[in-house]
C-alpha cells in the first residue's frame, strides 16, 4: 500500500508489453522448418550422392550455360525493344501508340509455350525468308526458314519478343513516374528532347524500373525451362535426358533446382548491389574535376 503511494512514474522501472504469442509462433515455425529440412536431408529417396555426382556433370553445366545465355540475351533485347515500345506508346502519334499497344497486346495474350512452339515451326507459316521489295517486287535472295531458325534461336527470339512486351509496360510506367517538371526544367535549359530523355528522364526512370525488371529476369530464367519442348538442351532438358536413362528422377530435379536457386541468388544479390549504388549515387562531377 505505502509502496504504491510513493511510486514516482518518472523514475520507476518501465516494463514493455511482452508479446508472448509472437515468440510461440516463431518457435513453432522454426521447429516445423527444421523438421522439414531434416526430413529432406536424411531422405533415402533423395539420394544426395547422386545429386553431388551430377551437380558438376558436363551436360548439366552446358545446359546451365544455355539457360543463362537465353535469359541474358532475352533480357537485354527486352529492355532495348521494350524501351522503343514504351517511347512509341508515349509518342505524340496515334499510329505509333496503336502499333505499340497492338504489339504488347499480342505478345501478352499468346501463351509462352504456344509462342515458343510456333516460332520453332515458323517454316510452316513462311517456308522461305527472303529479302526484296515487298508487294510483288523483285527478290534479292531467299533462304529456307528452317535453316535460319534452330531451336536455340527460336527460344531466344520467343523469350526476347515476349519479354519486351512486359518490359515495355514497366518502362512506360517508370518514365511516367518522373515528374513533368523535370522535363520542363531540362527543356528550359535548352536541352533537346533526346538529350532530356537520356540525361534526365531515363536515369530517374531506371531506378523505378530496376526492381520489376530484376523480378522479370528471375521469372524468365525459370520460364526458359519450357525450351525442353523444342529440344533445346538447357539445364532442365539436360537433367531430363539424364534421368530418363538412369531413372533417378528426384536427385536430378534437385540438381536443376539447386542451380536455378544459385543463379537466382546471384541475380538478387546483383539487384541489391545496383539498387544500393543508385541510392547513394556518388558525385560524378567531383570525381571528374579532381581527375
Amino acid at each position: 500500500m505505502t509502496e504504491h503511494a510513493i511510486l514516482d512514474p518518472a523514475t520507476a522501472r518501465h516494463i514493455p508489453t511482452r508479446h508472448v504469442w509472437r515468440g510461440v509462433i516463431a518457435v513453432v515455425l522454426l521447429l516445423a522448418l527444421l523438421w522439414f529440412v531434416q526430413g529432406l536431408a536424411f531422405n533415402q529417396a533423395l539420394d544426395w550422392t547422386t545429386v553431388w555426382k551430377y551437380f558438376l556433370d558436363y551436360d548439366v553445366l552446358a545446359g546451365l550455360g544455355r539457360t543463362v545465355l537465353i535469359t541474358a540475351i532475352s533480357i537485354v533485347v527486352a529492355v532495348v525493344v521494350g524501351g522503343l515500345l514504351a517511347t512509341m506508346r508515349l509518342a505524340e502519334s496515334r499510329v505509333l501508340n496503336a502499333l505499340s499497344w497492338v504489339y504488347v497486346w499480342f505478345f501478352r495474350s499468346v501463351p509462352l509455350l504456344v509462342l515458343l512452339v510456333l516460332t520453332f515451326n515458323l517454316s510452316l507459316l513462311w517456308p522461305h525468308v527472303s529479302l526484296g521489295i515487298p508487294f510483288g517486287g523483285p527478290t534479292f535472295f531467299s533462304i529456307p526458314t528452317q535453316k535460319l531458325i534452330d531451336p536455340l534461336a527460336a527460344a531466344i527470339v520467343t523469350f526476347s519478343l515476349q519479354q519486351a512486351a512486359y518490359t515495355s509496360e514497366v518502362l512506360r510506367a517508370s518514365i511516367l513516374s518522373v515528374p513533368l517538371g523535370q522535363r520542363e526544367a531540362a527543356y528550359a535549359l535548352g536541352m533537346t528532347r533526346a538529350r532530356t530523355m537520356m540525361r534526365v528522364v531515363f536515369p530517374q526512370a531506371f531506378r523505378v524500373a530496376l526492381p520489376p525488371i530484376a523480378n522479370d529476369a528471375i521469372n524468365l530464367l525459370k520460364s526458359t525451362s519450357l525450351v525442353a519442348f523444342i529440344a533445346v538442351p538447357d539445364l532442365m532438358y539436360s537433367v531430363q535426358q539424364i534421368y530418363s536413362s538412369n531413372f533417378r528422377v528426384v536427385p536430378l530435379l534437385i540438381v536443376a533446382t539447386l542451380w536455378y536457386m544459385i543463379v537466382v541468388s546471384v541475380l538478387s544479390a546483383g539487384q541489391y548491389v545496383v539498387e544500393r549504388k543508385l541510392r547513394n549515387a556518388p558525385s560524378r562531377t567531383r570525381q571528374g574535376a579532381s581527375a
Partner: protein
Amino acid sequence: MSAFLEITEVGKRFNGTTVLDDVNLTVDKGETVVLLGPSGAGKSTLLRCVNMLERIDGGRIVLDGEELGWRESNGVMRELSGRAEARQRQEIGMVFQSFNLFAHMTVLQNVVEAPVGVLRRPKREVIEEAHELLKQVGLDHKADAYPAQLSGGQQQRVAIARSLAMHPKLMLFDEPTSALDPELVSEVLDAIKHLAVTGITMLVVTHEIGFAREVSDRFVFMENGRVVETGLSRRLTVEGAENARTRDFLSKVL
C-alpha cells in the same frame, strides 16, 4: 525602335477556354518587369509561352530581334523544329515554382549539366564558374548535396544558379517563392534582388508586392488573360494604381 522582348497580340486557348487574350507587353533591355494578378489571370501561361513550353495560338513573341518558336518562309510562318526551339531556349532562363532541380544529380551537377552538355563548354571552366555562381547564392558548401537534402529556399537558389550558368539574355521567374515556407521566402527574393542590379532582363510572376515595388521597374497587372494595367512599380500602392481592379487587388494583398 523596338523593345528587347516584344509580346504582340498573343493568344492562348486550352480546350476552348481563352487563357491569354490579345496580350501586348514589352520589356526593355536590363529591365525588371513583374506580372501581377489573381490566380487564373494567365501570368504563368504567358511566361511559359515566352519559353515555348506552351505554343501560342496567335500573335508573336520576339526576343532581341528574333522571332521565338516560328520562322517566316515564303510568306508563311513555320513552326521551328525541336532542335531550333531548344537553341532559342538556351538564351532564356526559367525558374519554376516547384524548383525542378534534377533529383538524381548533385547541386553542382545540376548547375554544370547544361553548359557542358548543351553549350559544349569545357567542363573544368564550367565547374569553376558553377562554384562561383553557387557562392553568389550562398550555397557553395552544398555543392555535393542532392536536392532532396536541401530546404525549399536552398533548392530555389540552386535553380537560379543553374539558370544563370547558361548566361541567358532573359530570365523568367514563375512564382519563385509560392512553394516556400514563409521564413524561406526572403532568401530567394534576396537572390533575385541581387540579380536585378546586375542589369539582366527579368520577367517575374509574383505575389510579393513589397518585393515587386522595391526591385522591379514596371508592373503589369493581368486578369482573365488580359493586361489590365501597366505602370511604374513605385506606383504599386492602393492609392498609386490607376485601374479600379488593380486597386481592388492591391487592397486585398497589401
